[in-house]
């Protein structure tokens, strides 16, 4: 016999009992066979029941046995009330699933360490500054010279790793006709060795791949890309591809676990940083890479930070010395910038920066919904336990311990939690990818590893246990504290139990109010942002982002545009350097009338003739560009520009200057005025002064400059512009060899992609607000229904002695309305306090706006009315005669 047999016996106690009984029986029979009287033998045997209990206790694990018994009993209790059990399980499953789903995404994006050696020693450099418009900004880009200086400064304590942003680039494994896109990332040669990674095939970069600019045309593929693009072709090493001017040779494949340091993006191809454009590498003003810091063992981050800060201040001072005509305010602002050194075990990406706060907020909302669901269940379990007060009292009277009673009630809660966990897991499994796709731009989906690993499982288990105790503990404590004497008399003080329920209802209403309030703020923000006027018409507009290899003269670009105009369904075609609101911008300082350039920058857009028409932007004064206009010569400016630089006067015919090559200033004449139209991607910032200049340009010798990239802006007259995508794509590459459409998006989609986060917050917050409201309604109904049921005798007596309906209604609802009111007040307090935390996610909505507080209050009031109506009617319609006969 062993532990196992005792566990087995605990799980099948009936068999054990039979076994023992049979042995006892064989003893008696043996006695009778020896000629003894049956009655005498039984007497001599003693108390069979006691002997059996003792034997059982010897042969099984007692606590396991009682646990099993309570598990079975708990299940039976649940099955007795199938409807309320199902409702409870569904609501809890929804809340738990949402929690698990939120955890999966937050874990995948922010918490899970990169699969590298010692991720906790990995840090990243970033910079923080308050922008001129008061919006706090954090960015993490460095120039390469700055990186080299920093690397030199801390080389005793840490290694620095430069990693460029993962860019979608066009490259080809064959001819120019077979261009394709891949996420490429330039990395320091030391990255792979410092991360302790070993290749899945071939070799990885080393320090020697990163020495002479332009001299290391090698590439390492990510495992994911190797798999999906090449089917894990073993002969991949040695193949080559062309990217821009360079031919790269593939030297190896990174290990399967590692997909780059930019969480949310899977890097396809790693390139040595020395292969970046030499001008970019040398430029102190081109900020294009992230700096990771891998501390040596034993090095202190503070010491490394101090050295980095000193170096960075020196670099800053040098840069500032090069600035001319910088205003005092601007200079102060420049030096107010701070350098930060933050742990980066989970990698570093803009996705993390943009969604950290939003996901944190959603997690809090989800946790509140879970609390609301738990409150409901706590009340349900309390009511059920109260209904069983006599049974509990009986158990105590015949010797059940307090702990055993608690276990009995907790097991029932554990069942609910277990069932809900299982259902919630399915929900989390299905919903997390949906949420990720909601925030993914359609043409470049976010890639997060949503693995069901031990982290997710551990979280799920911890959640289930926490939830069990959260809603099960109070009812269990109450049940175990039953006093047999009073309970068996039928007079357990019902008011104290009612008090607990009302406190829980108050808390529930407060949480519900908070969720509704925050949802209202997010909805308002999304509404305002997405209804912001853009100043142009995106409807029916397609943007064909096009690259050429090599760069093509403007005449060829115009030829392609002309060809596109002849396609049926196409109304207008223009060319721009990049689509509006796609996130790209070019800025420059402006001066007027020979005055020194001020601090205010202007945006520059490079557009062809017909651009205003294609986007239905009206020309207010002057004229559109002509096909004979070349940059630099003329410009069309917007209202903000006219206001900023010409005092609001009609600017057509006037001149301004911008910087040209070699420090020269270029004179440009304004030929047209347009209203403010949005070209930047951030809806939260005001539209900036913007000047359009012609797409086609000439250099100082008046020689036309070829262009390697641009976007055809196509206004279509068909219902679904994307239905023309294939025809347009083919037309572009067929008209002129060397032209290749890299990406086709509708302008509407580009606009939408700038409010993806707000959309996600609004949709999910509204969804959770609905769930919270529903749960709160169910909770209110349940508690009032229960208290009416408890008091039906008292109500019956009151009616019998002449109480009016109004009095009864008032009487039964007083307490619940009080807790509702107090809960709502607490909710307002919580909301106003919590609004500060979400302020940076909001736009043009104020937490203190009475509107924002009124909506959730009305919502809760309406739901409360609906929920309370039935129990009140039931109370009022109580038939005194039948009630008084009842017990």
């Amino acid at each position, binding site marked *: 016999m062993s532990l196992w047999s005792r566990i087995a016996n605990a799980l099948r106690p009936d068999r054990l009992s039979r076994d*023992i009984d049979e042995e006892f029986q*064989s003893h008696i029979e043996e*006695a009778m*066979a*020896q000629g003894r009287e049956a009655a005498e033998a039984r007497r001599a*045997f003693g108390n069979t029941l006691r002997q059996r209990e*003792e034997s059982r206790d*010897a*042969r099984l694990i007692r606590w396991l046995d009682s646990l099993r018994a309570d598990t079975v009993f708990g299940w039976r209790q649940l099955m007795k009330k199938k409807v309320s059990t199902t409702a409870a399980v569904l609501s809890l499953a929804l809340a738990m699933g949402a929690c698990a789903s939120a955890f999966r995404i937050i874990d995948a994006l922010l918490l899970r360490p990169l699969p590298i050696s010692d991720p906790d020693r990995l840090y990243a450099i970033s910079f923080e500054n308050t922008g001129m418009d008061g919006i706090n900004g954090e960015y993490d880009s460095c120039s390469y010279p700055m990186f080299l200086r920093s690397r030199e400064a801390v080389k005793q304590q840490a290694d620095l790793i430069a990693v460029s942003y993962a860019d979608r680039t066009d490259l080809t494994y064959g001819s120019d006709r077979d261009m394709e896109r891949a996420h490429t990332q330039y990395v320091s040669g030391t990255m792979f060795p410092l991360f302790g990674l070993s290749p899945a095939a071939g070799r990885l970069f080393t320090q020697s791949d990163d020495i002479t600019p332009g001299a290391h045309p090698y590439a390492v593929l990510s495992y994911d890309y190797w798999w999906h693009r090449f089917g894990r072709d073993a002969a991949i090493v040695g193949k080559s591809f062309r990217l821009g001017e360079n031919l790269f040779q593939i030297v190896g494949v990174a290990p399967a676990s590692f997909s780059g340091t930019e969480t949310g993006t899977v890097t396809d191809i790693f390139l040595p940083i020395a292969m970046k454009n030499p001008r970019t590498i040398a430029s102190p003003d081109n900020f294009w890479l992230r700096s990771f810091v891998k501390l040596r063992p034993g090095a202190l981050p503070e010491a490394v930070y101090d050295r980095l800060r000193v170096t960075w201040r020196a670099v800053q001072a040098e840069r500032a010395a090069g600035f001319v005509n910088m205003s005092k305010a601007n200079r102060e602002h420049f030096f107010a910038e701070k350098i930060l050194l933050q742990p980066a075990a989970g990698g570093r990406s803009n996705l993390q920066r943009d969604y950290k706060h939003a996901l944190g907020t959603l997690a809090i909302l989800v946790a509140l919904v879970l609390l609301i669901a738990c409150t409901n269940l706590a009340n349900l379990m309390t009511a059920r336990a109260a209904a069983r007060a006599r049974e509990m009292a009986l158990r105590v009277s015949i010797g059940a311990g307090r702990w055993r009673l608690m276990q009995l009630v907790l097991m029932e809660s554990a069942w609910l939690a277990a069932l809900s966990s299982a259902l919630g897991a399915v929900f989390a499994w299905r919903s997390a990818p949906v949420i990720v796709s909601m925030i993914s731009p359609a043409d470049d989906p976010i890639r997060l590893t949503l693995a069901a690993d031990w982290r997710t499982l551990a979280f799920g288990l911890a959640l289930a246990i926490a939830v069990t105790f959260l809603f099960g503990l109070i009812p269990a404590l109450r049940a175990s504290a039953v006093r047999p004497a009073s309970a068996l008399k039928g007079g357990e003080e019902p008011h104290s139990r009612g008090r607990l329920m009302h406190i829980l209802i108050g808390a529930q209403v407060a949480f519900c109010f908070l969720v509704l309030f925050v949802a209202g703020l997010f909805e308002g923000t999304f509404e305002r942002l997405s209804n912001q006027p853009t100043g142009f018409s995106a409807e029916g507009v397609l943007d064909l982002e096009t690259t050429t290899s090599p760069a093509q003269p403007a005449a060829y670009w115009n030829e392609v545009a002309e060809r596109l105009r002849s396609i049926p369904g196409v109304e207008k075609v223009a060319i721009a350097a990049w689509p509006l609101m796609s996130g790209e911008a070019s800025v420059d300082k402006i001066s007027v009338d020979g005055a020194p350039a001020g601090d205010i920058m202007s945006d520059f857009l490079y557009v062809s003739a017909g651009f205003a028409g294609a986007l239905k932007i009206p020309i207010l004064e002057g004229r559109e560009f002509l096909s004979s206009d070349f940059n630099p010569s003329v410009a069309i400016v917007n209202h903000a520009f006219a206001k900023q630089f010409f005092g609001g006067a009609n600017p057509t015919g006037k001149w301004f200057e911008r910087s040209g090559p070699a420090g020269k200033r270029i004179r440009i004449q304004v030929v047209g005025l347009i209203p403010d139209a949005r070209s930047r991607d951030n809806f939260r910032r005001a539209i900036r002064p913007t000047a359009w200049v012609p797409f086609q340009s000439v250099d100082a010798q008046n020689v036309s400059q070829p262009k390697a990239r641009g976007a055809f802006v196509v206004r279509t007259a068909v219902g679904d512009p994307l239905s023309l995508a294939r025809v347009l794509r083919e037309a572009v590459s067929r008209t002129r060899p060397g032209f290749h459409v890299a990406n086709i998006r509708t302008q509407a989609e580009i606009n939408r992609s700038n409010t993806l986060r707000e959309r996600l917050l609004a949709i999910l917050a509204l969804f959770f607000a609905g769930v919270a409201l529903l749960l709160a309604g169910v909770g209110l109904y349940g508690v009032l229904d229960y208290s009416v049921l408890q008091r039906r005798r008292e109500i019956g007596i009151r009616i019998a002695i002449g109480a009016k309906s109004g009095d009864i209604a008032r009487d039964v609802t007083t307490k619940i309305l009080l807790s509702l009111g107090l809960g709502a007040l607490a909710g307002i307090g919580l909301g106003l306090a919590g609004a500060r935390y979400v302020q940076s996610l909001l736009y043009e909505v104020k937490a203190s706006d009475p509107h924002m507080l009124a909506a959730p209050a009305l919502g809760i009031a309406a739901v409360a009315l609906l929920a309370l109506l039935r129990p009140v009617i039931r109370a009022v319609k109580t038939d005194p005669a039948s009630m008084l006969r009842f017990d």
Partner: protein
Amino acid sequence: MPKRDSLQGSLDLLVLKTLLRRPRLHGYAIMSAISEHSGEVLRAEEGSLYPALHRMEEAGWIRAEWIKKDTGRRARVYELTAAGRKQLLAEESRWQAVTGAVNRVLRTV
């Protein structure tokens, strides 16, 4: 014969000793053997033998097996294990030590 538990503290020892001499006995036979060899002096409530047997079985001192008797009925028979033999030696020497000590006290006082 007064019906009281005269086996207090020594039941384990007696069961183990009995099973050492005569392996594979069922409960009734163990009880009969103890009673018989003690000249009917040592008796217990018959049923209390079983929790003791089951406890010793759990402890691994004895092992049990169901057999079919000639009469066709099933019986559970017990025999000593190696651990049981060791336990018997320990119990026996403990018993000797205790009774020796008690006897010394009885002689000298």
